[in-house]
């Protein structure tokens, strides 16, 4: 039961508030003790009212809290007792109850209409938020720890990759040097016009050495993939800069992709060059290569078509395999790998006899049209 000290406080109906409310007089005796406090503490308003605050709530006997309280009646304004510095000032009915476990207390001075000073002690139950913050901090610390571990692993990996790259680079360089010497001697012998089986064997050796050189070049290109961060490339510019040189004399390029840009590994320049070079080399009579773009749902289809001899149905997928082909067998394999770094997929969908047609599917978010 709440015992109000006058009509004006009674009219406030402090019992309906979700906070514990205790009003004290200037002599520190309790004048009001609301039902929320009764519920949390198990102390009846009858037992609390007119008694000294420190005899009902023992923590208020603490000299430090007393000093803080003094400020309230001495013109210092409201006093805050946070849950962090003062865990649970008001006692709980049961040690196992969750309500009121963490309390935030505000003590504010006010005056009754007759000028008599009072202080209102509002007890806020901050248990839920306190426990949530603790959990949140725990999760954050765990994430931070995991991130630090990840960083350490990444650093170790970077060192290992760097070592491997250095080793690969040195090995390639040394192999190339030895191969150059080897080919040099081979050409000297071939220039001496060997005959019969020897000539055939030497020719085979020359071809094998060229394949070795291509493998070394492939190893270099493959190592470079994914080394740099992907960036935006304008299709028009890529075609313009790739389709130059004697290989493409007599070939017309038509680019109908507008301002289309794709997010790609910087090696995309090599990929586009390989596609163009393939179109000319394998198309046999290719004179026109067209670039188009087509929206498909939330993606973009970049279509590269030529008017060469096309790709037979039976090898449409095999052309992307490493080792396939009449040249080095690395071109289209590399193209697929380079495009794959940023999620692009390539396939051949042309008709044999009318020309090759490559479709590159660019995922949503990895293409844009500046200026649109």
């Amino acid at each position, binding site marked *: 039961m709440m015992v109000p000290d006058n009509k004006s406080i009674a009219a406030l109906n402090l019992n309906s508030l979700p906070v514990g409310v205790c009003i004290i007089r200037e002599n520190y005796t309790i004048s009001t003790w609301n039902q929320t406090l009764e519920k949390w503490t198990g102390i009846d308003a009858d037992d609390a009212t007119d008694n000294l605050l420190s005899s009902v709530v023992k923590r208020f006997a603490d000299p430090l809290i007393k000093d803080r309280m003094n400020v309230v009646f001495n*013109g210092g304004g*409201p006093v*805050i007792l946070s849950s962090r510095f003062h865990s649970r000032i008001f006692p709980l009915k049961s040690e196992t109850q969750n309500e009121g476990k963490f309390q935030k207390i505000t003590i504010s001075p006010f005056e009754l209409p007759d000028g008599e000073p009072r202080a209102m002690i509002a007890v806020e139950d901050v248990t839920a938020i306190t426990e949530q*913050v603790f959990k949140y901090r725990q999760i954050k610390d765990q994430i931070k720890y995991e991130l630090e571990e990840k960083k350490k692993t990444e650093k170790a990996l970077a060192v290992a990759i760097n070592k491997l790259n250095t080793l690969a680079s040195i090995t390639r360089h040394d192999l190339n040097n030895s191969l150059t010497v080897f080919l040099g001697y081979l050409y000297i012998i071939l220039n001496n016009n060997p005959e019969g089986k020897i000539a055939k064997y030497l020719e085979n050796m020359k071809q094998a050495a060229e394949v070795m050189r291509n493998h070394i070049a492939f190893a270099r290109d493959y190592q470079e993939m994914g080394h740099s961060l992907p960036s935006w490339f304008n299709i028009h510019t890529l075609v313009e800069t790739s389709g130059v040189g004697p290989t493409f004399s007599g070939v017309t390029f038509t680019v109908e992709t507008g301002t289309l840009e794709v997010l790609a590994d910087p090696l995309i320049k090599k990929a586009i060059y390989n596609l163009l070079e393939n179109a000319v080399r394998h198309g046999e009579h290719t004179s026109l290569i067209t670039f188009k773009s087509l929206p498909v749902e939330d993606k973009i289809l970049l279509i590269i078509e030529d008017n060469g001899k096309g790709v037979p149905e039976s090898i449409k997928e095999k052309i992307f395999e490493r080792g396939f082909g009449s040249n080095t067998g690395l071109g289209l394999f590399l193209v697929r790998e380079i495009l794959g770094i940023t999620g692009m997929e390539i396939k051949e969908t042309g008709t044999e006899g009318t020309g090759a047609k490559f479709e590159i599917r660019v995922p949503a978010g990895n293409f844009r049209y500046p200026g649109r």
Partner: protein
Amino acid sequence: MDVSEEVLDGVKELITIGVGRSAGMLNRLTRTHVTLTVPEVCISDTYSECTIKHSITTQDTHHTSRVVLDFSGEITGTFNLIIPHISALNLVIILTGEEGSPDEMDALRVETLLEVANIIISSVMSALSILISSKLSFQYPSYQTSSSDGEHLTFKDQSDVGINARTRFLVQEKEIEGDIFIVLNRESFEHLTARIMTLMETGL
């Protein structure tokens, strides 16, 4: 703005008394040795003049944490305790002896900072209250974050007067600086000035 040495000294003394009292309370509350000093006080009716050179409100590199308390009555104005955000966070962490990552001012830390600021504000207001004869009405203190460009401290009225006191915390050999910034309306400031002058002449 012309402010007599007496008034400046009087205000500085009262703020120092309040700040000193709050240091004592913080020592007892946190069982940590806390030293609080007020090395400089400035009074002016324009914001630019009112902010002390090197005061945190004139630094534009960081965001600040601010605890604000409005009061009215015989004197009317706003009390601001302003601390650079990171310093405020560190202050709370040191005072509470928390472990873990001190990277965010979460709800608990805000609540703790509010109590620390409340101790300082209450002590200073209590010290200033010897200049007035009636009790003031106070709003509930609020926590705010803002950039340290001082825009948020713009006087409510052109005739307002600002009292800026640089406050230096020394906690566990770490120095944290903040600003106490009290904005008073002109009438309140003149009232305080007259009371200081009277006290100087007659004594307490």
